[in-house]
């Protein structure tokens, strides 16, 4: 008994059609997968929002760095069962080349920095701590200072006054603005911070790093030029130069000469009185001559 067979012609036309459809579907899937693959592997990016490059952090305040990371998931490294995955890892923060922070979430980075210029580098790394390929990092330069971030420093001499007459010891009072005194110990220069030089007749007499009057002793008699100059931590003058000068006169102390003057004055008065008396006596003798002895 033979089974009835399907017609050859119909079955033969269906197979090529299925193959064509399958090929079209395969092509569509391939195209879809190819087109969608770049979206999954988008390149991470890192942006420092603030501060601006070259910013000055004044008054000894820490530098606060705000950043944004896109197409990257920050996670804690070393989690149980964690594997290296693309677009996942953490953020390393370097200050002047040294590792300063390891961040696992987007948050402000507070960095207390010593006075001077610094370079801050932010770098995205994978879960294994290795930098991404290609490297994804951002950096900026900042300058930290104990002084104010802006404005121009000034200095003025309060005492002695211009052309004032003083004794051999003089207190020097001065006033500064937009400038902070710091003790120099070899640190880097920073804007609007340093100390003041007390210069007398062109020679540096003292260096003052505190807002207190200076004291000059054993000054010789005569005219003197006093200059107060603001300088950097390394003793170099500010640019442009910030200084103030006055001329004052040193004279001998009146306490030393007053008794001498008084004694001399009294002596002179006595001589004067004596001379007057002598003169009056001589004049009186001339006007009233003595009667002769025989008349008496």
């Amino acid at each position, binding site marked *: 008994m033979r089974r009835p067979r399907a017609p050859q012609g119909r079955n033969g036309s269906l197979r090529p059609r299925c193959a064509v459809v399958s090929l079209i579907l395969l092509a569509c899937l391939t195209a879809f997968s190819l087109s969608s693959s770049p979206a999954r592997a988008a390149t991470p990016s890192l942006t420092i929002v603030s501060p601006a490059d070259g910013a000055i952090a004044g008054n000894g305040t820490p530098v606060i760095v705000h950043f944004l990371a896109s197409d990257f998931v920050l996670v804690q490294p070393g989690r149980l069962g964690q594997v290296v995955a693309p677009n996942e890892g953490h953020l390393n923060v370097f200050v002047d080349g040294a*590792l300063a922070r390891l961040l696992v979430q987007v948050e402000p980075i507070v960095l207390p920095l010593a006075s001077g210029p610094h370079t801050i580098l932010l770098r995205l790394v994978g879960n294994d701590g290795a930098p991404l390929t290609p490297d994804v990092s951002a950096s900026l330069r900042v300058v930290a200072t104990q002084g104010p971030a802006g404005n121009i420093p000034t200095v003025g001499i309060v005492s002695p006054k211009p052309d004032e007459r003083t004794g051999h010891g003089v207190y020097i009072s001065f006033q500064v603005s937009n400038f902070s005194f710091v003790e120099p110990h070899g*640190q880097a220069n920073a804007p609007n911070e340093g100390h003041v030089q007390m210069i007398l007749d062109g020679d540096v007499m003292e260096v003052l790093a505190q807002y207190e009057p200076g*004291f000059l002793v054993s000054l010789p008699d005569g005219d003197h030029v006093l200059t107060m100059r603001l300088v950097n931590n390394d003793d170099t003058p500010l640019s442009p130069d910030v200084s103030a000068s006055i001329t004052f006169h040193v004279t001998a102390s009146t306490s030393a000469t007053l*008794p001498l003057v008084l004694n001399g004055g009294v002596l002179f008065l006595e001589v004067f009185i004596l001379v007057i008396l002598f003169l009056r006596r001589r004049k*009186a003798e001339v006007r009233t001559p003595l009667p002769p002895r025989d008349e008496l």
Partner: protein
Amino acid sequence: MSGRRLVLLLAVVGLLFGIGLPAADVRAAPPPPTLTIVSPADHAVIGDGSPLVIVFAVQNFNLTEPGTAGPGPATNEGHVNVIVDGNLTAVVSKPTVVLALDSGTYQVLLRLVSDNGTPLTPDVSASINVTLTRGPATGTPRIAITYVEILYPFPGDLWGDDITISFRITNFTLVPPGRRESVPNEGRLRVLVDGLVFKDITTYEPAHFSDLPDGDHTVTMRLVDGAGEPLNPDASDSTSFRVEGEQKVAPIPDLSPYLFTAQIGLGAAIVGVLYVHDWRRKR
């Protein structure tokens, strides 16, 4: 299915089960956590009064805020206790620790603990010794006397007993006595006059001397550490000068005794003249 086939099937199932059990045990016991301090290095010196920033790395451990872990004991989840010189100082769940510490040398121990604060078993910890200083972390301290304020009558020879000496220091920060511990590049300035300790200076200001006896003197300025010991190598500088008292040199001659005698004489003469005049008139 024949009996032989059934026995064979049971044997294969039993074998697979026997192999599978140890495998299940391996999956149930997670790998042990580890803890490593990445930065700073052991025995590092942190300068300029900066806070101590410790960056650490864990493996096979999930850092969670205390009190937020799931129910039940978890050996691979918890936080980090920060212990400074034996005292619990901070509890952190992020891989960066910032500690504000005074100058000194400290032992910092980090320990992984479970969510309830108990140490892991076995203990997982790491420690370092660090030194903090308000001075610079590196560099050799130096001192130089810059200005000796002797103006009159000429430099190097002092009339009177007041003198001011300025100095400049490098790679060293003057601090008041604190923990009396020797840390690098910080301390105070010891002033010696003729080899004897005169005073210690803890702020950057010129040294002023008064009432120095007449004669030659040598002032030495030496940097000392927090314990008062000289640095190694020694950092000092000296200057010499002569003090000549004002009484030896009289810029203004003292004529008072002569003037006083003359005044008495003249007064007597005035009185005498008046008396003689009246006496002669009466006669």
